[in-house]
């Protein structure tokens, strides 16, 4: 099984795309609330409330985050929280009302329509919730569509498209039409199409939400496998916290257009910023989030007979090994140096203390 953990360190620290105080306001005259398109306002919450009072709709309020090169950045939130608006602002399918978006350090919002088309043709790819396939084109033509728009010749198109077709495992279905495919296969076409132009920045807008749970899980694995191979910079939108957890290097939780918290999945679970975040993290099996590094006893010495695992292995995957090795398991860091030993007792202790922090646990003890 491919997991994101195999991906090792969560990308470099070079920023690929950066949002600075981005606002999107819908209504009659949204520009009036911002001077010269600047999104920096004193108190963002108060400003958003003020805008809402005038009958305008605030879809994104003062959103700022960075996406690093090679990283999977997940934006999570319930429907209407502004996550889809944000990914559309990043691709300029929606024009932000105020704020800045920097792509490779250049202001994306200042690009002319022609430059924007050029950026979309070469730097960006996007996958849609309902696939957005063209009903009149077969699988091959759908996937090669962006290449055809660029005016690429047939033989090069064939070559490029067949590469991504192979990547998503659609060989043999090239001549099928979208309506002849299952949902999972249609989304593979969507993924292949978005990758055909070999983008640097990959947007996925709830790509697996329309699929049933078993297929969804399978597609997540596929996605992680592809990402391991390609190392794109990714913005991934989902409303499913468990999905975010599986794939995110870092994630942002949004509510009412604003970012509530940004961090690694473990950060969010260990230190939720507020009750809203806690609501989501409450459902997560703790063993899946806790890693070997959080349960390791650094005072113990590892023996040579102990099996060795990396520090970011989840406790969930550790459990069967612990059952076999009563004395414990050696934990090593990214550079392969043993940092300590994890025993069954360590795990039990960690699980117990985490469980006590949960909202429902508090209710039960009250």
């Amino acid at each position: 099984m491919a997991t994101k953990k195999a991906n090792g360190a969560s990308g470099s620290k070079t920023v690929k795309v950066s949002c600075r105080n981005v606002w999107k306001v819908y209504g009659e005259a949204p520009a009036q609330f911002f001077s010269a398109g600047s999104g920096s306002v004193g108190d963002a919450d108060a400003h958003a409330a003020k805008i809402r009072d005038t009958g305008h709709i605030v879809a994104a309020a003062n959103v700022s985050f960075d996406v690093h090169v090679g990283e999977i950045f997940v934006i999570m939130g319930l429907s209407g929280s502004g996550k889809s608006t944000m990914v559309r602002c990043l691709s300029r399918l929606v024009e932000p009302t105020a704020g800045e978006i920097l792509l490779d350090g250049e202001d994306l919002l200042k690009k002319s329509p022609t430059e924007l088309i050029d950026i979309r043709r070469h730097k960006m790819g996007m996958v849609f919730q309902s696939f957005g396939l063209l009903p009149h084109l077969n699988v091959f033509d759908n996937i090669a569509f962006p290449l055809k728009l660029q005016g690429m010749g047939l033989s090069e198109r064939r070559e490029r498209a067949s590469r991504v077709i192979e990547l998503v495992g659609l060989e043999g279905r090239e001549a099928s039409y979208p309506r002849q495919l299952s949902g999972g296969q249609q989304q593979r076409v969507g993924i292949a199409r978005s990758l055909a132009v070999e983008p640097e920045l990959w947007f996925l807008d709830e790509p697996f939400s329309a699929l049933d749970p078993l297929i969804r899980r399978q597609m997540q694995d596929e996605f992680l496998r592809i990402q391991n191979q390609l190392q794109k910079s990714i913005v991934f939108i989902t409303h499913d916290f468990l999905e975010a957890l599986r794939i995110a290097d870092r994630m942002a939780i949004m509510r009412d257009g604003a970012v509530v918290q940004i961090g690694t999945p473990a950060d969010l679970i260990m230190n939720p910023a507020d009750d809203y975040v806690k609501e989501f993290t409450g459902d997560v099996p703790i063993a899946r989030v806790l890693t070997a590094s959080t349960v390791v006893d650094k005072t113990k010495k590892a023996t040579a007979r102990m099996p060795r695992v990396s520090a970011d292995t989840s406790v969930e995957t550790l459990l069967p090994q612990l059952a076999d090795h009563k004395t414990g398991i050696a934990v090593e860091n990214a550079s392969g140096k043993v940092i300590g030993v994890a025993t069954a007792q360590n795990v039990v202790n960690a699980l117990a203390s985490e469980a006590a922090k949960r909202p429902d646990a508090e209710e039960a003890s009250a």
Partner: protein
Amino acid sequence: MERIDRTTWIWIGLLAATLLMLALRDKAGWLIVYPTDWVVPLKGMLNTAMAWFEATFGFIFRGISAVLDVPLKAVQVLLQWLPWPVTIALCAVAAHAAAGWRLVIFTVAAMFYMVLVGYWTESMNTLSLVAISVPLAIFIGFVTGVAGYYFPRSERLIVTVLDLLQTVPAFAYLIPIIMLFGFGPVVGLIASLIYAFPPMVRNTMLGLRSVPAEVIESGLMSGATGWQLFWQVQIPTAARQLLLGANQTTMAALSMVIIASIIGGTADIGWEVISKVRKAEFGESLLAGIVIALMAMVMDRITAGLALKDRSDFEQSTSFTDRYWYWLVAAALAIGLFLAAQVFPLFRSFPEGWEFYPAEAMNEALEGFVLAFRGVIESVKSFAFFFIMLPARIGLEQTISPYSWGFEFTTPLKIAYLVLVAGLAAWAWVRGSVNLALTIAFFGILFFFGLTKLPWPALLAMVTFLAWCVGGRGLAIGVALSMAFILVTGIWPQAMLSVYLCGLAVVISFGFGALLGIAGAHSDRVSAILRPINDTMQTMPLFVILIPFVMIFKIGEFTALLAIIAYAFVPAIRYTEHGLRNLPADVIEAATCMGCTKWQLLWQVKLPLALPVIMLGLNQTILYGIAMLVIAALVGTNGLGQQVYIGLGDGDFGVGIIAGIGMAIIAMVADRLIQAWSKSRQEAFGLTAQQ
């Protein structure tokens, strides 16, 4: 008994006022007949305005007419010059491309019929009009639709104009077209353009609007320019809707070409039918009518086949022969048959001696049939006339006589009628349905005095108040003004005749159609039988529907009534079946679980829930009825339809256009009243009706 609310009091007041006016009718005749002195001389004004307009801008229209005449003549000459096997072969190739071998057989058989009965020349004249008008109408419709899609502000204007173009009877705008564009086939072409482009506009806007947002976004993210997005993403995605629009436009163009042939000078198949119907030559008119019906069916099947075709076989192959297979076959067939025609004169022109034209025999057979069943036919006709039509038109008061009913309408009988109506109304009132009681009282008055003899102030007030009840003040004002137009232009009596005939036909065809629709919704077999009948009736050109009824019942109002019913019952069936078949499944299941019997389920659950959709069907029934009313005027009615003909015959723009607008007003008032009512019901149910 519950307290009587204000609305009910007003209704009672209106009914009482009606009776009072009827009591005063001998003293104040103006209550029944709107005085001529009060008529606004709009006709004259319109004619003056038209004369001025024609004198000033006429050259533009005559220019357009001259320009359009060139391609029209060219196509006409081409189609007449081509040997008939070539034309048939080309159509057969198109049929194969659209829907396979079965349609090829049908197409060839249908077109060979045109050759066989000797109507080939006339058919090709009709076809050449259609061949020019359809591409033009599609182009105009497409461009207008795209404009409507990109400029939402213009959309309202476009939709209003389309509504008007489609509700004003086609005949009515033939008049200004003749005046502006002159006579000749080009008039038919222009009329058919105007009549046929609206469906393309609607379908273009609908198609473009229903392209999913994500598909557009995916096009944008693929780096499409505006032009690429439009032609490579939006148009192909909307293709099916656009092609359905093209299909509807083709059918509308054909039907208008046929209608326009009434002005003559076209030597086409429509003229053949009309002139034969007028001369009461039934065999001839039927043989020509079949040509039109076949032509309509072939065109419909081919264009619909192309629209609904699965395109998966296409575009797969890149080899030249595979891609252009149809064109190659068509070219080979055309050249081969053309050369054959040079050798065999039979292919050049079909020998007259071989033609099969059994009109005489048909006339004789019909005569025999009519003679044999004269008793039955006459009694059906006089029963309908004396017991249904006349009471609705002039009231029992004047209908009942020893000649018609076999006895006098004496005072005791009148009292008995009064007691009956009052009794029924009182019974409904006691049962708690006040609306039913009021309805009974109204129809009691209507049938006693007759619709055309009711005082106009009362009708005006009642319809206006009805509009206020179902749609509020705005609707009431609109309805009152529209009816006032009919009144002050002096066409009220003709309008009432139209309302009477059309209303009667609508009631009958709606009742009949709704029953069939209910049967169709509950039995797949019935539905399978009804569907081809519905399809055929809808593609059948209006004139053709007249023929069988004229054959048997001769010219007259009863024939017109039957023809309207035959045309208007289709939407009633369709909408009833659709409404009943598309109810929320969980509601039906819930009701079944509660122990509803089949009939309870139908009456208490399904029909009330499906009512909004069924009402849309009633709406369509009325619109169809009014459309047919104009055509039916050909066989002898005295309503607005006849006025339109008079205008057309005399070249009197004012008379024709006012009558045309009058019919449009009747259609629109009925439409708005039903829509408003249906909408309020839907909101109450939290349902939305699908078109």
